[in-house]
C-alpha cells in the first residue's frame, strides 16, 4: 500500500508475527518493569535478569501492542541479550537518536538537545524501524520497550542487592 512500505517493512512484520524472547521470568529474582503508552493502551512488560556486573543475562517480553511496539520490543530483546550494561545503554541511546528528533517535534518543544547519535553502535535489524520517524505518533510505540528497558537498568543499578 503506497506510503506504508517504509513503516511496515518485512522484517518488522516478521518480528511482530514471531516475537523473540516472548515470555516471563520469575520476579524476583528477575526484575519486572512495566511500560504503558497512555495514548493507545499498549503495554509492555520487560523481565530482566541482570548479573552482578550489570550485564543482561536474560530478558523476556510480555504485554500487548501494535506491530511497531511489539516488533521493536522483540528486536530490542535480541539486541541487548547478553550485552553489558554499557553496551545496552549505548544501544538505547543509538536507538533513541534514530527516533528522537521527531519525538521532540511532536511535543512541540524544541528546548532540549536531540540525543546524539552513537556512531560506533551498530543497530542492525533495528534500522528497519527508521521508517517510523515519518509517522510521528508511532514513535512512542517504537520507543516504549526501550524506555522500559532503560528504567529497568536504572533500577538494577540502584538496587543491585534486590535481585
Amino acid at each position, binding site marked *: *500500500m*503506497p*506510503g*506504508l512500505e517504509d*513503516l*511496515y517493512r518485512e522484517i518488522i*512484520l516478521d518480528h511482530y*508475527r514471531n516475537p523473540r524472547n516472548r515470555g516471563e521470568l520469575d520476579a524476583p529474582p528477575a526484575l519486572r518493569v512495566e511500560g504503558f503508552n497512555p*495514548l*493507545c*493502551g*499498549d*503495554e509492555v512488560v520487560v523481565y530482566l535478569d541482570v548479573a552482578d556486573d550489570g550485564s543482561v543475562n536474560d530478558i523476556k517480553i510480555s504485554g*500487548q*501492542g*501494535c*506491530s*511497531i*511496539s*511489539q516488533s521493536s520490543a522483540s528486536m530490542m530483546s535480541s539486541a541487548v541479550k547478553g550485552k553489558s550494561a554499557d553496551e545496552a545503554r549505548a544501544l538505547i541511546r543509538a536507538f533513541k537518536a534514530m527516533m528522537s528528533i521527531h519525538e521532540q517535534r511532536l511535543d512541540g518543544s524544541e528546548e532540549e538537545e536531540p540525543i546524539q547519535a552513537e556512531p560506533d553502535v551498530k543497530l542492525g535489524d533495528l534500522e528497519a524501524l527508521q521508517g517510523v520517524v515519518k*509517522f510521528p505518533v*508511532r514513535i512512542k*510505540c517504537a520507543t516504549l520497550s526501550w524506555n522500559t528497558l532503560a528504567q529497568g537498568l536504572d533500577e538494577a543499578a540502584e538496587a543491585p542487592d534486590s535481585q
Partner: protein
Amino acid sequence: MTDRLDVARIKKDFPILERVTHDHRLVYLDSANSSQKPRAVIEAMEHFTEHSYANIHRAVYEIAEEATAAYEGGREAMRRFINAPSSREVIFTKNATEAINLVAYSWARHNLGEGDAILLTEMEHHANFVPWLVLREEKGVELRFIGLTEDGQLDLTDLDRLIDGASLVAVAGISNVLGTINPVRHLADVAHNAGALLLVDGAQYTPHMPTDVQALGCDFYAWTGHKMLGPSGIGGLWAREELLDAMPAFLTGGEMIRDVRLDGWTPNDLPWKFEAGTPPIVEAVGLRAAVEYLEGIGMDAVREHDVELTGYALRTLTERHGDKITIHGPSEPAARGGVISFAYDNVHPHDLSQVLDQSGVCVRAGHHCAKPLMRRLGVGATARASVYVYNDEADVDALNESLDEADRLFAI
C-alpha cells in the same frame, strides 16, 4: 437510499469534509471522539468575536450587554436542548469531565464518607471512573460495579443487591466503546426507590438522542459541547435546583461570589455560583449555533439516521469480513448509538487505524479511555468507527474497502 437525512446537503455544511488527506477525501468516522463543526458554528463564533465580544456580567456598555445576552442565550439553548426545567440549573464547565468532577468534589465530598457506596458500571469512561476512584481513596467510599452481559449490555440480574445502601449511581447514557444505550429511566427508578441519586454521563447521549433530563429521571446530567457539533472548551452539568442549592461551591473566584470580605464570602445565585472566572464566552455562542443546527435537523431524525447507518455498517462489515471481524457490543442496531468497536483478525487496532488513514478513513484505535472495559473484554485496544449526521453509506463502504487493504497488507 435508507437515509432520512439529506446527508449530501449536510456534508456541504462541514468545511473540513472538503479536505483531502493522503490523496483521498476525508472519511471521518471518529465523531464519538469529537465531532466536526458546521459552518454555522464557525461563523457564529466569528461574527460574535468581530462584533460583540466583551467580558460578561461585568460591565454596562452596549457590547458587554450583547455579550452577556449571547452567553446566556447559549445557556438557554442548552436548557431547551436537554429540556431542563430552568436555566438556573444549567452550569457551563469546560467539558463533561469537569462536570463530573464538580459532582464528585462538591456534592459527593460533602455528603459521602465511610460506609457509603457508589454504584458504577464496568463500561464507564475514565471521566466517570477516576473521580470516584479518587473519592474512594480520600473518603473511604465503597465502589461497586454493574457487570456486563456477553452482548455488551448492563447485567442487571444483581441490581437489587448492588443498589442496597448505595447513595449514588453513575452511568453513561451511551457507552463510547460498545455503543450500548443504557436503561437510564429504569436505573433512575431503582436508584430513587433505594434512596440513591442518579448521575448520567451524557457525553455520548446528548449528541445522538433526543434528550429530556426530566423524562430520564436523573438527578445529575453531564454533557460536552465538542461531541455535539459545538466548540471545544465547553461542556456542562445539569442538576436539580435543590441539589445545586445545597451544594457548596467548587471552583472559586470571580463571578461566582456575591460578596467577599477579608473574613469570609457568600456565593452568587445559581447557576453562576458554579462558574468561577471568565467562562467560555465565545464557546457558548458556538454551542448555541450547534444546538440550533441539530434542532434544524431534528433529533428524532438524527437518531433514525444513526440506527439506519449503524445497521448498514453492522450488516456490511459482517457480510464482507466474516470471521475476520469481531464486533463488540449489542447485535441489535436499535440497542446502540452510532459507535462500532471491533477487532480485525490479527491486525492490531493501532496498525489498522494507520492503514485506514492512508485511504482517508479516520477511525480511532486505543482503549477509548475505558481501560477497565478493555480488561473486561480481554483486549488491550479496539478499533472504533463512529458515525454522525454527516456520514453516509459511502463512508461505510470506504471503511469496508480499506479494511480489505489492511487485510492484504498484514496477511501472512
